């Protein structure tokens, strides 16, 4: 039951990500200058690396955290010992 709830939840999140507004690809040129000029105004971050990994390229952060979770899952799955002392 809990797995079905989690699957439905992930499906809803996936649909929400797909149906969000995106800019057309032609307007995204000279991104390096855009990031340097506007990162304090768009995001309230004084650290440009934080502005990029938490606002402009936040999908990378999502998949990075997923990768950490998957590595923990893999270690627990492939060990030959159960989880008790």
């Amino acid at each position, binding site marked *: 039951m809990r797995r079905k709830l989690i699957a439905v939840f992930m499906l809803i999140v996936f649909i929400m990500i797909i149906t969000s507004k995106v800019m057309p690809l032609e307007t995204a040129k000279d991104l390096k200058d855009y990031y340097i000029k506007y990162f304090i105004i768009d995001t309230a971050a004084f*650290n440009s690396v934080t502005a990029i990994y*938490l606002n402009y390229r936040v999908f990378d*952060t*999502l998949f990075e*955290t997923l990768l950490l*979770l998957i590595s923990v899952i893999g270690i627990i799955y492939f060990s030959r010992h159960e989880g008790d002392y």
Partner: protein
Amino acid sequence: MKDYSQLLQKTIGFLYPFIIIFGLYIIINGHKTPGGGFQGGAILASGFIINYLVTSQKTLNLKVLTRLEKLLYLSIIVFVVICVLYINASLSVKAKEIYLVIMNIFIGIKVCCGLSVVFFRFILFESR
């Protein structure tokens, strides 16, 4: 480590609160100074490792850490999708700062839990 050296316990135990404060400082000030969630989370995980070296009883509840990590991952997804993809234009400057701080805290705790689970699985189970 059958017999615990008092020297190691005393000196590392003295450093223990400083490391935790340093890790929390790097996590919370991630939007102004270099650092952020991932780096501060690794520093906090070293606090768990120090805790293993210092105390003589070696029990740690790994189920709580894995459950906390899964819960944090789900809340990170929801928070990001709502705050960045949908209502990013209508947030004030203060709200954007609060978003950055909360995201850094979530990521920091998640990385800390993940790394300490990896460390303890290898130490407690694979070394037999």
